[in-house]
């Protein structure tokens, strides 16, 4: 079964994809992947029927997925939902999603991405600040090292909620962002990695090999010149899935696992 729609959330937001599928009265499953996290949304004749990501299902799962700012998606048509977990109407869900997206736009002015890292502001706030328990829990996790995403995972909270709280704590003068900490600190793969990857993959796939590699780098929202070490194995795995022959795929993976493990 061929995917009819595939791409990166950095280029097309999940809300836009859902609006498109809904207005086209589509039936099928939308798979979303952000690093090691995955989610599924099912539509039936354009109506949102079921959503799941990790332990969250239904409306909660869908709103969590709508908060993902990065990742990949693919839509597989004509797959029926295993269950119905969404009771709100699709129109209501999309309206709520749009409201959340608008809030994200404001939040992004301060919380640039879910990889952003914040620290306690030494000057503090000039006014008296009262915190709700959940805000205190988030504040207690801020240490100048943990990203928004990591804090959301530790507290088992939706990353949108954590970003919203960090936004309000920063606006109140309690926090400040450590500029692009995650980006600056991330380790980049060396040239040897891409030389080996291109050579071994081209050996199996022929001249189309480098094109597939570049496509997958783009789908991961990355750039070959500054490709993070943390996504190297994911890239290798994704491109290895293009090798139809299981034996050849395992051989390629064996060689690349050796490269990745140094």
């Amino acid at each position, binding site marked *: 079964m061929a995917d009819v729609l595939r791409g990166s959330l950095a280029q097309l937001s999940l809300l836009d994809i859902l609006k498109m599928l809904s207005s086209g009265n589509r039936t099928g499953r939308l798979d979303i992947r952000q690093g090691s996290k995955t989610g599924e949304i099912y539509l039936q004749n354009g109506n949102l029927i079921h959503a799941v990501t990790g332990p969250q299902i239904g409306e909660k799962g869908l709103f969590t997925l709508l908060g993902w700012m990065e990742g990949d998606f693919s839509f597989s048509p004509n797959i029926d939902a295993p269950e119905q977990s969404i009771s709100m109407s699709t129109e209501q869900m999309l309206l709520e999603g749009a409201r959340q997206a608008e809030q994200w736009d404001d939040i992004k002015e301060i919380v640039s991405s879910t990889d952003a890292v914040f620290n306690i502001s030494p000057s503090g706030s000039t006014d008296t600040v009262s915190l709700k328990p959940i805000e205190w829990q988030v504040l207690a996790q801020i240490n100048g090292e943990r990203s928004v995403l990591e804090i959301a995972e530790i507290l088992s909270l939706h990353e949108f909620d954590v970003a919203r709280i960090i936004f309000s704590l920063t606006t109140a003068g309690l926090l400040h962002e450590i500029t692009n900490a995650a980006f600056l600190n991330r380790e980049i793969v060396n040239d040897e990695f891409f030389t080996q990857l291109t050579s071994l993959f081209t050996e199996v796939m022929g001249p189309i090999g480098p094109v597939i590699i570049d496509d997958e780098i783009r789908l991961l929202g990355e750039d070959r010149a500054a490709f993070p070490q943390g996504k190297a194995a*994911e890239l290798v795995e994704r491109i290895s899935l293009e090798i139809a022959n299981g034996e050849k795929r395992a051989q390629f993976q064996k060689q690349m*696992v050796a490269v990745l493990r140094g």
Partner: protein
Amino acid sequence: MKNSLLEINELIGVWGSLVCNNQAEIISSVPPADLNMAALENITRHCVELLSTSSVSVQDFNEAVIHFQQRKIFILDLEQAILIVLCTPSIDISLLRMTINVITSRWKTDSKIQKLFKNSYVERL
């Protein structure tokens, strides 16, 4: 098989690994040093139950990554056996999956291992 499990355990983020049959009976294991046998058997039973119930309701379901007490557990259905890898949250799942694919591809052509799996597999009535 133990050598293969040791190979998996060498990966950063792997805490221990085992292979069991479809009745959750352990065939071979290199478990974490700080996990007792009862706990290991308990985890194995839950993993096999999860895999068997999920494969009934979801077609082609043969792999799962579950979060369990701040650990990640990778479960792979090998048709006549089940591979379970206990990991720390920092595990690189892609690297683990590829390492496992390399090893299980080797197992597929190893007649001794295939015979062991076949003999351990319990046919359902």
